[in-house]
């Protein structure tokens, strides 16, 4: 009945932002925005995408998942395996090219595996790299693997009617377990070394990082825009009413004849997949992924962004993720000048968590509906 008015506004702002960054980029514009900062902005858009998923699952469906960054990481590992394989293989081929006898495919494959896995003392392809030589399969798995994990985990949890804080703890356990599993050298994903060199796109060696960075920025903006439209459409219909009903009174929805578990599972899995896509766009810009990325704290940050931005508003999640993660980059990236108090100096790298915590308390006290709620406040004021 009601269409979401925020969609055209959001898309317009996103498009204007993308255009502005392009015009100031090194590749296509004045160069006011450096390549590395272009990457930071592109990565921020990916985090906004993950926050959008978090808002769907928490803000709309009421499931406080503290494990959605696991799906983000799985997406990153998915694309990372293809990037590393293809890139290393190209290097190996170049090295073997001047041999008298041309190398066989098996030799190339063995040499590539040795190159990738010698750092953890391995020389064979682990089973989970089976699809890494195909870009198409890798792209499919980026969505399927997080989706499957979310489906199985969600099915087990929701079927037993685990809700509230207990579910949050379980999701924390899930992401912790996955992170510890990936830390092991035997797992086959290079343990704590993770996957690196992901910024080098195979087949695009001749194209500089200046252009690649802006392409990934565009892709991230497009993914965010499309998901925003899709999510707004999803929650504006009857499905949205039911899901918000589940958030507010799950038992009531059951007595209306809806299988609450099926709806929760649907939202949980869908948002897991969105996080997978976000991660697959993020890590080629970050250049490296390791198991630390999916430590429990990462998923908690995701919830903090959505809480600060405002739950149950799609733009709130995006605003929260953008503001907090950019501030975090500013304060922990060594850009913020330290404050010298004589005996004692405030070094922002250490003090950022304090600032974030303070901000969180202030938002909770003075803007309970988050930064997105403030937008509502001013928009509504304009109209009357």
């Amino acid at each position, binding site marked *: 009945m009601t269409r979401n008015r925020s969609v055209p506004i959001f898309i317009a702002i996103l498009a204007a932002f993308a255009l502005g960054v392009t015009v100031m980029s090194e590749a296509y514009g004045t160069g006011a925005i450096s390549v590395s900062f272009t990457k930071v902005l592109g990565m921020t858009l990916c985090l906004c995408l993950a926050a959008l998923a978090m808002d769907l699952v928490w803000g709309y469906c009421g499931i406080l998942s503290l494990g959605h960054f696991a799906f983000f990481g799985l997406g990153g590992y998915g694309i990372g395996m293809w990037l590393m394989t293809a890139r290393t293989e190209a290097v190996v081929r170049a090295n073997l090219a001047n041999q008298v006898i041309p190398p066989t495919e098996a030799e190339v494959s063995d040499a590539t595996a040795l190159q990738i896995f010698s750092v953890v003392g391995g020389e064979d392809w682990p089973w989970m790299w089976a699809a890494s030589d195909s870009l198409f399969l890798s792209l499919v798995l980026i969505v399927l693997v997080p989706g499957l994990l979310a489906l199985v985990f969600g099915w087990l949890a929701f079927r037993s009617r685990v809700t509230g804080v207990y579910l949050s703890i379980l999701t924390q356990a899930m992401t912790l377990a996955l992170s510890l599993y990936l830390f092991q050298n035997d797992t086959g994903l290079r343990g704590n070394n993770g996957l690196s060199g992901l910024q080098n796109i195979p087949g695009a060696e001749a194209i500089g990082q200046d252009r690649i960075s802006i392409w990934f920025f565009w892709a991230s903006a497009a993914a965010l825009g499309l998901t925003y439209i899709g999510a707004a459409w999803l929650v504006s*219909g009857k499905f949205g009413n039911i899901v918000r*009903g589940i958030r507010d009174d799950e*038992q009531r929805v*059951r007595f209306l*004849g809806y*299988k609450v578990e099926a709806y929760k599972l649907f939202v949980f899995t869908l948002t897991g997949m969105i996080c997978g896509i976000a991660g697959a766009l993020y890590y080629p810009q970050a250049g490296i992924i390791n198991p630390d990325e999916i430590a429990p704290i990462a998923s908690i940050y995701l919830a903090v962004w959505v809480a600060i931005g405002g739950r149950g508003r799609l733009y709130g999640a995006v605003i929260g993720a953008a503001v907090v993660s950019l501030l975090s980059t500013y304060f922990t990236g060594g850009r913020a000048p330290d404050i010298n108090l004589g005996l004692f100096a405030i070094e922002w790298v250490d003090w950022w968590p304090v600032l974030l915590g303070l901000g969180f308390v202030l938002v909770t006290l003075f803007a309970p509906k988050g930064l997105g709620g403030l937008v509502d406040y001013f928009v509504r004021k304009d109209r009357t």
Partner: protein
Amino acid sequence: MSSLLEVQGISVTFDGFKAINDLSFEISLPELRAIIGPNGAGKTTFMDIVTGKTRPDEGTVRWGDLGRSLLTKSEAQIAQEGIGRKFQRPTVFEDQTVWDNLRVALKKPRGPVSAIFDRVTETDRTRIADIAAEIGLTDRLSDMASILSHGQKQWLEIGMLLAQDPKLLLVDEPAAGMTSEEREHTTTLLKRLAETHAVVVVEHDMEFVRRLDCRVTVLHEGSVLAEGSLDHVMKDERVIDVYLGR
């Protein structure tokens, strides 16, 4: 006369407290029935068992012509079978409009995919308009349910029950918080519904029950104490003891 719902010998114990004790109950289609009883008599627990929220320790709950057991079904499945429930405290989706509340309740396929692609048809529109007229909320359709008065929320929940179009309606204290005029309206509505549905009304208010003018079941300490017309049960010694004694 075949029975729609047949409950036989159910018992349920919470932490040693026997909330329902060997209770049997039967209702046919169509029928209007009132359940009365003092606090703690097991009225709400009885409804919880029928709707699948609570599982009894023993006994059977059979449904429909085929007498299929409801005990293995989930709340959602039981609701889909055609049992609708109105809660004692009005429970509507406060954060949504009256129109949306009714739309969600409307009898349509209940799966996630059907919900995603659900379109409001002309039939739906008419149905919602009819129900809104019935419950007197026609000009409140676009208001948030949270700003309705207590009585209006009661009405909205009754409207949601109508929208579900169940065979059996379990109505817990429908008249609480209503003006005498609204009570009158509720009585007429319930009586009319009972011409084509099975309706069970739980109520404390004897005056209201008298106006319903139907068969009454008196519950006490988890079992049926007496059953019959209101005048009949009010003459029953044990009922008098329970209500007036002590």
